[in-house]
C-alpha cells in the first residue's frame, strides 16, 4: 500500500530566538491511502500544528512531508498551501459570511484551473448533495445553523476532489446531539468517496469511533500509535490510559511474571493481570482499571481480584451510576448498574477480571509525566 501522507521527523518551533516554544518535537507518521487517521491529544499537544504543517499553513522547522507521493515540505522545498491537493475543515467552520452557500462551495473551483460555468454548478450541487445540503444552495451562508455551516464547510473541502482531507476539530463546536449525528455521517461520507483523512480531536469517543488508526500525542510527541482497539484496550503508558477513558491507577510490584500469568502485589491485595512481555518479576508497575470493567457489589464475592472500599461519591447519570470509591489511600472510579445505587458511605466490594487489568511499567509512566511537565 502506498502512503497517502508521510510525515518524517517533523519538528516545529515558534517564538523568537531565546524565547522559543517547541510545539512539535519529532513526529513521524505513515498514513495509508484512504485511511481515517486521527491525531488525538489534549490542547497544546502539537496535533493541530502537525495538521497545519501538512496543510502548509505553518512551516516546520525541520523534517519533511509527502502528500500522495509528492514532497510538499523538505529542507529544499516549501510548496505553498494553494498548490497542495487538499481540502480542509476548520473548527470554527470558516464559512465566508459575505458569500452565498453556492459561492462558498464554488470558491475552490473558481480560484483553481478554469472550469466551465455549468461544470462548476454541477460539481457544487454534487458536493452539497453529498452532505445533504442540496436544498440550501441559494441561502446566504450566515442564515445557516452551526451544524449546517459545518456541512457546508465539508462540501467546500471536498468539491475539488482533493487527495487529502484535513479535519481540524470539526465537531467540537457542535452541541452533543448534533455531534453524534455528524460523527456518523462524516465516516459514511469518507468511506463512500474514499479519501485519505487526517482528523484532529481531543475527544476520545470521536477518535475511537471514527478512526482506522489513532496517534495519541502529548507534549509534541506521538506517545502511542495503533488501532482504536489497541489504544483503548492496551494503552502502553499511563498517559494514554488516563487520557483515553477515565482510568484509575493502582501501584504495585510484579511478583509473578511469566508468559502465562502476571501477578501484581498492591497494598489493597494481589491482582491477577493480563500478561505483558515487557514486565519482569520485581518490577514496580501500575495497574490501569477502566471504570466500566469494575463490578460493584454490596457484599464480598469470591470473584477474582476483588477488593473493598467505601463509596465517596455516587452520581446517577441515567444508564449507569458513576462512583468514586475510596480504596486504601486512593479514589477509584467505577461505573455500576443503574438498577441499584449505593449511597455515599456504603461499604462495597469491587472486582475486575484479570484480562481487564492492564499493567503498565512504571518507568514509562514516569517519563510521560516528566514530558508533561
Amino acid at each position, binding site marked *: 500500500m502506498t502512503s497517502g501522507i508521510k510525515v518524517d521527523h517533523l519538528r516545529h518551533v515558534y517564538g523568537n530566538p531565546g524565547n522559543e516554544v517547541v510545539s512539535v518535537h519529532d513526529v513521524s507518521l505513515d498514513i495509508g491511502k484512504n485511511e481515517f487517521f486521527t491525531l488525538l491529544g489534549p490542547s497544546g499537544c502539537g496535533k493541530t500544528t502537525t495538521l497545519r504543517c501538512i496543510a502548509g499553513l505553518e512551516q516546520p*522547522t525541520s523534517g519533511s512531508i509527502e502528500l500522495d507521493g509528492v514532497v510538499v515540505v523538505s529542507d529544499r522545498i516549501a510548496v*505553498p*498551501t494553494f498548490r497542495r491537493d487538499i481540502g480542509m475543515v476548520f473548527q470554527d467552520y470558516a464559512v465566508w459570511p459575505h458569500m452565498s452557500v453556492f459561492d462558498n462551495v464554488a470558491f475552490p473551483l473558481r480560484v483553481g484551473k478554469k472550469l466551465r460555468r455549468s461544470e462548476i454548478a454541477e460539481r457544487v450541487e454534487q458536493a452539497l448533495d453529498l452532505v445533504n445540503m442540496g436544498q440550501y444552495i441559494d441561502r446566504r451562508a450566515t442564515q445557516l445553523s452551526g451544524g449546517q455551516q459545518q456541512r457546508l464547510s465539508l462540501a467546500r473541502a471536498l468539491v475539488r476532489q482533493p487527495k487529502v482531507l484535513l479535519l481540524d476539530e470539526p465537531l467540537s463546536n457542535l452541541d452533543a446531539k448534533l455531534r453524534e449525528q455528524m460523527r456518523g455521517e462524516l465516516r459514511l461520507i469518507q468511506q463512500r468517496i474514499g479519501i485519505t483523512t487526517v482528523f484532529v480531536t481531543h475527544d476520545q469517543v470521536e477518535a475511537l469511533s471514527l478512526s482506522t488508526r489513532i496517534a495519541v500525542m502529548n507534549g509534541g510527541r506521538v506517545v502511542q500509535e495503533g488501532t482504536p482497539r489497541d489504544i483503548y484496550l492496551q494503552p502502553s503508558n499511563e498517559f494514554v490510559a488516563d487520557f483515553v477513558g477515565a482510568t484509575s491507577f493502582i501501584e504495585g510490584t510484579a511478583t509473578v511474571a511469566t508468559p502465562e500469568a502476571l501477578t501484581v502485589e498492591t497494598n489493597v491485595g494481589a491482582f491477577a493481570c493480563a500478561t505483558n512481555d515487557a514486565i519482569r518479576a520485581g518490577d514496580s508497575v501500575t495497574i490501569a482499571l477502566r471504570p466500566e470493567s469494575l463490578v460493584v457489589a454490596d457484599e464480598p464475592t469470591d470473584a477474582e481480584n476483588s477488593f473493598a472500599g467505601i463509596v465517596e461519591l455516587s452520581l446517577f447519570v441515567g444508564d449507569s451510576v458513576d462512583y468514586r470509591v475510596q480504596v486504601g489511600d486512593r479514589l477509584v472510579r467505577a461505573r455500576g448498574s443503574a438498577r441499584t445505587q449505593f449511597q455515599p458511605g456504603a461499604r462495597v466490594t469491587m472486582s475486575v477480571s484479570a484480562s481487564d487489568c492492564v499493567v503498565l511499567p512504571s518507568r514509562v509512566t514516569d517519563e510521560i509525566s516528566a514530558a508533561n511537565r
Partner: protein
Amino acid sequence: MTTDIRLPPTAPATAHQPVATPPRRRRGRPRIGTIVVLIVLAYLVIGPILMLLLSSFEDTSGGVVVRPPFPWTLQNFVTVLTTSKTLSVLGATLVFAVACLIVGFVISFALAWVVERTDVPLPGFIYVLVVAPAGMPGVISAIAWSLLMNPTNGFLNVLIRAVTGSTAEGPLNAYSLGGMIFVQGIALVPLTFLLITASLRNMSPNLEDAARASGARPWTVMRRVSLPLLTPVLIGALVYQFVTVIEGVDIPLVLGLPGRVTVFSTQVYLTTHSAFGLPNYGVSSTYGILLLVLAVAPLLIYNRVVRRSQDYATVSGKAFRPTRRKLGRWRWVTFAAIMVYVFISFVLPLLVLLYASLQPFVGAFTLASLSRLTFSGYASTFSSSLFWSSLGHTVIIGFVASFAVMAFSVALSWIIVRSKSKLAWIADVLAFIPHAIPGIVIGLAVLLIYLLIPAQVYGTVWIIVIAMVTQYISLGTRLTTGGIAQIQVGLEEAARTSGARGWQVWRSVLLPLLRPAIINGFMLVFLATIKNLTLPLMLQSSDNVVLSTLIWNDWNDGKVTETAVLSVVLTAVTVVASILLRRFSGSGEELK
C-alpha cells in the same frame, strides 16, 4: 502581497538538530510588498522627525532655509532654553491642557453616566445632540465664541452690560486663557463622551451585578467596580485628548493671539510665519521638539495601559439592560440642565454664526439689526472664485489623503496582525509614531523637508496631502487593525486551503469583509482633513488655500460676514456628515 511562501521566524539550529538544514527556507523572508509599504511609511513618518532634529541644530537666523552643507550649531537650543518666553509658553501650555482636560472629562463623564445609567428622559435624543458638535471645526467654534464673548462688542457682553448698566469692557473675555479653556474644553466633549458611553455600554452587567449581589451599595459599585474597569479607557482618552489640545493652532490662534496668550503650537506657527521679519526655522524646530517631548511622555504611559488592557477585557457580546438609577423628581430637571448645556455648547455658537452671516456688517444685536437680514454675504461668497478653488482643494485633499491613508492602513494592519514577518514590529511602531507627533510639528517638519528637497511639491495641495497622510495614518491603522483582527484567521486559511493565491485571498475574502471598516475609516479621515486648520495653515501658499485656511484668513483680515458665511457652509457640511457617519458606523470606539 502576492508572494506565497510565508515562514515564521525560527531559532538557529540547536545541537541535536540535523545541521544540514539550509537556513534559507526556514527564515521569515519578507515579501516585496511588505518592504515597499514599510519604506514609504518610514519616509512619511520617520522623515519628518529626522528633519526636525536636523534643522534644530542648524543656524537658520535671518530666514535661512535648511540647506547643505548643514552648519551645525547649538544656538537654537541656547536661544530657546534661555529666554523667559519659553518658560511662560510651557506654563501656559500645561495650564491650558490640564484645565481643558478637567473641563472636558468632568462634563463628559457626567453626561455619559446620566445617559447610560439613569432613567433620564429621551437618552437617544441627548446622545445625538451631545455628539453633534463633533462635526464643528475648532477654528469655527473659536470664531463663534469670539463673536459672543469678545470684551468690546461680544453679544453676550453687550447683553450683560444692558442688564447691569455697566459701560466698561467685558465682563466676559474670550481672549484669555480662561476663554480658551472654556472653548477647547467643550470641544473635547463629543469624542470623550462617545468613548465613555461606549465602554459603559460594553461593560458586562455581570460585573456590576456581582458587586451588587455581594452587598455593595450603588456608590461602592461605582467606586470599586465601574470606575476601575473604565480606567484604561479613561487614561487612553485622556492621553489622546492631551495631544489633541496641544497640537492644534485653531483655538489658541483665534482666541489666544488677541489676548497675548501663547502656547507651544502658536509659538511654532509664529516663529515660522512671522508677521514681522523673517522666519527662523531652526528656532521653530527646537520648539517643535520640545512639544514633541511633551506629547510623547504621556503616550508612553498610554501605550503601557493599552498593553495591559487585556486584563480589563469586559466586552460581552450579549445585549443587556443595566440597572438604571431612578432620578425621581430630578428626572426632568436633569434633562433641562442637559438641554441648557446643549444650547450653550452647540446651538448658541451656530445661531451667532448664522446671524453674523446674514448681516451686512456685524454690530450690536438689536431689533433694528434683525430687519437688516440679507443674503448678500452668501451671494458674494458663492460668486467668489477663491471660494470655489478653496472648496476644490479641500475636496481633492480630502479624497486623495483619505484614500492613501486607508490603503496604507490596510497594508500596515495586515502586516501587524497577520503576517508572521520579522518586520511586523516595524509596522507596529510606524503606525504608532504619528499618534505621538503633534499636528503642528508634522506641518513644520513637512514644510522643512520640501523646502530642502527640490521636488515640485512645496506650495501645492500635494504637500498638504502628504502631511495629512502622516497625521492620520495612526487613526486609519487603528480602525483597520480592529477590522482585520475581527476577521477570523480561519476565513483566510480556508481560502488558501481551497487553492486561492495571495491576491485571490485579498480580492475575494479580505477586502470584501473589510469593506465596512475601510468605508468608515475613509469617511472619518475625510471629515478630519476637512476640519483640520493646523496643517493647511502651516503649509499655506497662495495656490493651496482650503476652506479652513480661507476662514482664518478672512477672520484675520476682519471680514466678519464672509467668515460667518463660510463657517455656516462648512459647519453644515461637516455636522451633517458626522451625524451620517455615526448613523453608519455606530460609534467612535475606534479611537480607544
